[in-house]
């Protein structure tokens, strides 16, 4: 795996690039400002299944849920929203509730109390629109899942440690590339 911290110190990285990547690398784990503590714990548990980080120490884990909380706190948009979806803040609150209700209806426990296999089966059902209908009356489950997954992936793979995991070194382009 690429030693990202070492590369960032070299002249292979431009100053603006070094600045944003170092800041992201050193960002503290976020205390939720938009989500409640319970919602945030649930969102973290979901993100851990979508993009597992079991091989990382706590200090090195990418704070995927924190990035979502930050965006929703600032009410930032990525420029578009499926017309059938409510505004992002509402969608996340309804979607988290839907996932928890699906867990309760199928396994009789909240999502965070389930085994990882049970959690995965809840998420698969949400993605495939096989969740109990009663949990998803005001939100299309498949669209919510798509939006959540895309945002989780974008947060995770924007992080230098995740980029090192896939051996991406494109940010070290101060001198350009020979083809």
């Amino acid at each position, binding site marked *: 795996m690429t030693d990202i911290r070492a590369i960032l110190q070299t002249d292979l*990285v*431009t*100053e*603006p*690039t070094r*600045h*944003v*990547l170092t800041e*992201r690398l050193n960002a503290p784990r976020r205390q939720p400002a938009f989500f409640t503590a319970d919602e945030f714990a649930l969102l973290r548990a979901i993100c851990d*299944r*979508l*993009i*597992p980080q079991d091989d990382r120490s706590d200090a090195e884990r990418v704070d995927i849920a924190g990035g979502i909380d930050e965006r929703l706190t600032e009410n*930032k*948009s*990525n*420029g*578009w*929203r*499926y*017309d*059938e979806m409510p*505004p992002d803040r509402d969608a996340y609150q309804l979607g988290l509730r839907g996932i928890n209700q699906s867990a309760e209806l199928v396994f009789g426990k909240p999502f965070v109390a389930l085994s990882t296999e049970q959690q*995965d089966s809840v*998420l698969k059902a949400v*993605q495939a629109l096989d969740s109990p209908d009663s949990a998803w009356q005001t939100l299309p489950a498949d669209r919510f*899942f*798509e939006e959540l*997954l*895309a945002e*989780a*992936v*974008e947060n995770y*793979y*924007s992080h230098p440690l995740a*980029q090192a*995991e*896939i*051996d*991406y070194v*494109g*940010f070290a*382009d101060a*001198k*350009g*590339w*020979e*083809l």
Partner: protein
Amino acid sequence: MTYDAVVIGTGAGGAPLLARLAKAGLRVVALEAGKFWKPAQDFATDERAQDKLFWNDERLTAGNDALAFGNNNSGTGVGGSTLHYTAYTPRAQPDDLRIRSEFDVGEDWPIDFTDLEPYYDEVEQFLGVSGPSPYPWGPVRKRGYALGPLPVNKAGRLMEQGCRTLGIRTSPAANAALSASYYQDGVGHRPACINRGFCQAGCRNGAKASMDVTYIPLAMHYGAEIRPECFVTQFRRDASGKISEVIYVRNGQEERLHCKNVFLCAGAIETPRLLLLNGIANSSGQVGRNLMAHTALQIWGEFDDDIQPFKGIPGAVISEDTHRPAQRFGVPTDFVGGYLLQSIGVMPVTYLSQLARGRGLWGADLKRAAAAYNHVAGINILGDCLPYAHNYIELSDEKDSRGLPKPRVYFSNGENEERMTAHADQIMRQIWEAAGARNVWAFPRNAHVIGTCRMGHDPDTSVVNADGRAHDIPNLYISDNSTFPSALSVNPALTIMALALRTADKFLMSERAKE
């Protein structure tokens, strides 16, 4: 003070026109919603940091094939979406402008290829487009490209290899990024491309011909004024119906400009949105209608080779053999129009985000697919799209942060686009199979919003005339992709610029005729 012209938007439609009017000695000002960036210090090689280049005001997107916005389509900042375009600059072919004559559906343009040709030539030379000479498709050119083609990356090599096996001709593509340093009066020296491959997230050294390093400096050289971070909201009209004032918001405060003429160049969503908000130029009822979006299916594959898909100009290789596939291959097709084939490189977050949306992968499956990033290469198409009554933009009831109604955009591919895409899916899979790809997958998408204020001779069925002037308002012109009567089977930027120069010249001629 009264300006001769207020230009709204500084992208491919606004910037060339602004430079032309300034050169003619007019007092001109451009209003731009976004910032005036200094790429060397403001642009990081980081997709997340660069999302500041996208038009991120929320648009509601509806229909069977709801369009993505943000990083797909409009940009913000001086230079507009050219700040994040891939700089792919093929010319339209003459028959692209005559879809109805050829197929009895869609719309013909009210102008001919010969009207555009001298402007294509001028824009290519001014920007320093790098490409092959001779170019294998379309009419014989009067002049070759300004510079030789850019180096071909691995995705391009693989496409060449696959196409060779199948008997499909390829060529290095025309790209508005410099294969060698280039000098232009009024602009100065621009350095050669260093193959960063980050075109879609902002060029750092000015090698890519975004408007902020080409037509905008030229316009400023001739005295044009640029006002960034100004969001236009209203037009005031005089007793004769002409626009006399443009009202915009800067730093939360309303300001106004007195003007003799207005050039609306805000792109195919914001241009009709502004007209609809003001209830003007719409006696035809066509503002916001006829929305088209190119068919743009991508086929991705994994290869044994180390591809490093972030390196080099993303769209390195082209084939226009599929422009009219029936003519080229002698096999009838079940769709009208055609498309081009293009090799594609990709930045990691863009690729993995598409992987998430397109394949729905998560958990260990996602990690496995992501680990192959350095081994992926893509091909995509860029194909024509017919106008349909079911595709349009309207104002929604939901308000944005400025208190203005968010646009709602409806888009569903018709049978023709579905058939064209199916044809392309088959061909691209064959190319990738011949090149040795594994784990091939398709990402369906549409790119570029086009046609929401179309041009035509008939004021009942079009918004502007062939010169870009609004049928309803004599001192209002539109110059951007919203005026295209058909989508074309090529990327729109070069044609937008060519048409912008033509619109400026037509305007200047009509002004001279008044004197």
